């Protein structure tokens, strides 16, 4: 977190305000254009192997009452962010929403948090500054790392050197909102194992999987927050560690994998910075359900719809995924990670993971 960086972020924000100013002066209708953030405007970047926004743009223009309100809010938010950077403070997205209540102009106050979140995304895209650089953070996501990694984090209270196995409790090292403040010092890790559910993470830690296999266990806590995806990406890129994803055996978990590997729709402007295209999927695979005869639940209608829409989704247009999804549609079943416990509490660490990881040439 350098002051230089902050200065640049601030300048870029003020440039945006100046742009509005010039538009006024030229007698133009103040406006800003941002890529349309919908599924239809997501394109696959062949080169980067990630999802980015297409050419379609939405214009926020003062032409209408709604548009004018949006721009007014944008200007107030710019002012707030610029001040925040000036004072070197930070705030959460939720705080921004509540903070707007204190603004002198009622028209500039946010109606709900979706609106303020959306506006921050707009500003990120237009100013080409990430919200972390605005010192805006989401609510703590609680995602953690456990494993043989030594790092240095720049905290507000000075630098801290932390070993993610030795210096932390059972809970592991909590990933900060801006992982770019971390410097990796040393590691003994062989690979990264990103785990969807807390129960499974705890099982792996209890069984000492991280120590036995030199694994960095990253707890995703469901759909991973930006910081989690960012640190995963950095661990992969900087430490050259293979990334594997261990999730439930249902369509929603495949999407968790997808957002790690290819990027999500909401943050497609940051895909390059967040996505790890090389990430591999461990399971639970539909094939595992059959092979290990796991306890299952039937697929619900929404599961089936999700699977079918994934078959259409270019992100899953690979032989592997088509085969797995079609198999799942055929058996009409899904299984959770923890269903492996049906074969004993150690089955996952002694049998399943080693087998899968060696199949994938990770160990």
């Amino acid at each position, binding site marked *: 977190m350098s002051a230089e960086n902050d200065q640049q972020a601030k300048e870029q924000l003020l440039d945006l305000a100046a742009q*509005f100013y010039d538009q006024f002066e030229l007698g133009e209708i103040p406006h800003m254009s941002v890529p349309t953030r919908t599924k239809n405007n997501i394109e696959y970047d062949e080169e980067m192997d990630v999802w980015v926004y297409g050419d379609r743009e939405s214009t926020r223009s003062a032409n209408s009452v709604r548009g*004018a309100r949006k721009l007014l809010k944008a*200007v107030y938010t710019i002012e707030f962010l610029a001040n925040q950077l000036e004072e070197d403070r930070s705030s959460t997205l939720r705080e921004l929403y509540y903070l707007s209540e204190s603004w002198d102009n009622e028209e500039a106050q946010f109606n709900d948090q979706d609106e303020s979140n959306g506006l921050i995304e707009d500003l990120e895209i237009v100013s080409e500054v990430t919200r972390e650089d605005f010192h805006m953070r989401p609510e703590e996501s609680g995602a953690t790392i456990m494993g043989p990694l030594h790092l240095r984090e720049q905290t507000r209270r000075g630098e801290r050197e932390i070993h993610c196995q030795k210096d932390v409790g059972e809970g592991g090292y909590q990933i900060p909102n801006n992982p770019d403040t971390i410097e990796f010092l040393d590691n003994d890790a062989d690979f990264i194992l990103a785990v969807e559910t807390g129960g499974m993470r705890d099982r792996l830690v209890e069984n000492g999987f991280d120590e036995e296999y030199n694994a960095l266990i990253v707890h995703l806590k469901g759909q991973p927050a930006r910081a989690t995806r960012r640190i995963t990406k950095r661990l992969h890129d900087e430490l050259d560690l293979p990334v594997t994803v261990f999730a439930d055996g249902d369509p929603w978990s495949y999407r968790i994998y997808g957002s790690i590997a290819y990027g999500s729709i909401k943050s497609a402007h940051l895909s390059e910075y967040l996505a790890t295209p090389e990430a591999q999927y461990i399971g639970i695979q539909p094939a595992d359900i059959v092979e290990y005869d796991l306890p299952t639940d039937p697929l619900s209608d929404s599961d089936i719809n999700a699977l079918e829409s994934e078959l259409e989704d270019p992100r899953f247009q690979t032989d592997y995924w088509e085969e797995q999804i079609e198999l799942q549609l055929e058996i009409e079943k899904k299984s959770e990670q923890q269903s492996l416990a049906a074969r004993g509490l150690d089955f996952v660490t002694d049998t399943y993971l080693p087998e899968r990881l060696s199949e994938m040439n990770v160990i």
Partner: protein
Amino acid sequence: MTSFQSTLGDESGIAEELAESQQAISIAEFFEKNKHMLGFDSGARGLVTAVKEAVDNALDAAEEAGILPDIYVEIQESGDYYKLIVEDNGPGLTKESLPKVFGKLLYGSRFHAREQSRGQQGIGISAAVLYSQLTSGKPAKITSRTQGSSEAEYFELIIDTDENEPEISVEETTSWDRPHGTRIELEMEGNMRARQQLHDYIKHTAVVNPHARLELREPNAHFKFERATDQLPEETEEIRPHPHGVELGTVIKMLAATDSQTISGFLQEEFTRVGKKTADSVIDAFRDRHYGREMRWQPPASHEAIDLETLVSDATANKGAEATAAFADAIAAAVDDHDRIAHHELVDIVETAADRTEDEHGTAFGETVQEHAVDAVWRALIDAPEDTAEPDEDVVEESRLVTDCYELADAATSTRKDDEVIHAFAGRLAAKFEDEEDDRHRLTRRQLREHVDRAADLTEEYDDVSFGDTARENVTEAIWNVMLTVPDDPPLVRELEGDRDATSDLVDGMRATDIMAPPTRCLSPITDELIQAGLEKEFDADFYAAATRDAEVHSGDPFIVEAGIAYGGEIPAEGGADVLRFANRVPLVYQRGACATTDVVKSIGWRNYGLDQPGGSGLPNGPAVIMVHVASTNVPFTSESKDAVANVPEIEDEIELAIREAARELKSYLNKRRSMEKRRKKQNVLGTILPEMAEKVAEVTGRDEPDIDDAIARIMNNVLVERHTEANGDGQGVSLVVENHSSTNESLEVTDIVTSEPRNLSDGATAVEMDGEWFVKWEPEISSEGEAVLEYEVDDDASFDLDVKGVESEKLTVTDQ
């Protein structure tokens, strides 16, 4: 109950006995018992009706004499009774006619006239007299002074209801301060509960009679309605009836009364809008109905083995070879010239050929010879069997009529019909023609349709296909159009007189003929301009619209419908819209629910026109006044009290069209108002947001506040007028920049009011000095997204005041520094 039937046989003379008690009743007596029919059903209403009748009479009298009406109405309390006094400045009544006008029912000048007037039957005022004498027992007191006479006549009279004659109790001369006019004083039982209706009546009368001065004095109130114009309504003229909409009975009566010999003369003399040409059209339509048309068949084509010349030659004996050949040749050639030919056309051809041959060859071709020739050719044309020969059963050769019918039927029916079916149908239809006794093939349209129906029925039966109504009608129409009106002379009037059927055909013919709408000089519409002016005078609204329709006819009487709408302003917004009904300039106050006008207003979907209408039907809600005026030589009322217009379809249609015409204007006004309202709202919101945004942007960027007028004008698609001044030598240069950000061309009127004399005006400017101020005016027209710069120079110390017209204020942004 006693049964007369049972006693009929027993007692004689019952009928005689009953007959004794039957006697004529006088009209006055009848109405004495049926006061309600004249609008005198209650004390409250009686007073209003009496005022109405007296005022209507007064207006009519004054207008007819070309006098601007000046009418005074006074109502006094008089013990248990009310005393009604109505005075006018009309021409006055002569001593002879006065008692009859007031003292005899059904006495008047208007009943037989086709001319618009308020009164029609001559009942109204005498009914008021009757009502007064019935309730108070007092005679009517009437004063009248004709122009130029030194004294006024004074009468006191009652109506002798047995005789329907006036009974004069006092008759004397008196002096009166009005130079001419009539005054009537009636005492009657009554009350002022219907005060509102009375006021409505007077106020609405003022709306539609802007040329009249009205004054109403009540015990506790006093109203004056001054004249808005000195222009009398155009004088109306009496007209003859219009051929559309006279009934059979009327025509029969007219035929008996006319001096004309011929139908053509009768039509031209007795009806309006009928000249020679129209009369001919009516007569043709009559012929079609009365005599039928003649079928025209195609002349023989070259491939047919019919040699007309030979046929004619064979039929012509003893006329010499050369002449016969010429005769035959002329006929054949003339027939061949026709696409189709009817029997009477053939008769003409033969006659012409005979005359010509006689001229050239000196041989006379008499009637008999001509008849033979016609017969020979016509029989060939209709393929009639030889008289002598037995029908050849073996060789069933198809009649040429079948081919002809097939062509017509095929063209008239849909292509989906099978050729075979059409052919079979054509054969049957042709057979119907062949079976005609009259081989001239004369059919009325109805007979033709019967033939087509019969042929179609048979086709349906034998060929098992459907031959629907549309197809039948199309075939009938196609053949009817080919057929030709016959030249037979129409009957003379005296022949027609006793012939009910023929007369009925004539009436049908009159209705079927296109005839110009009746002249409107018999009508005196208020005109849309004056309706609007009248509404503007009496209602303080935001919007007014009015429409006057062209004249139409119902039952031979022309009528004009006019409608007006006032909206917004001071008109109360709560509840339903007010409907003001007028007939011949008379406000209709009672029986709103029974009136065709109200029915039509309720039937219109007012939501389409931007008014609120609960449930989508009924009276619309909101601040609106809907006015309808029906002017006619004979307004059909539901009853003699003349409170409601009867539901005559022609009139209802016109009422609807008139209202819709005015309502369309209302709609565009309301739409515009709504869009302006939206614009104003937007402008209000943006007008606060954008300056705040500009302020914030300036604060954040650390600059001065930006000028946002241009941006706002552009956002609002507005026209922006900005003043720029700059020092220029010893004075200052002023430029007014007009930018049009709207999507249409805008024509503006820009006036700058300057306190000292302007110089070097830019093109198109005019400067007018008035009281030390100069009005500098331009009228630029600026295209969408265009700009105009208006410039001049003026002294330094001058001050300005800018005024821009031609653009709605919502669409205008003026920055006058």
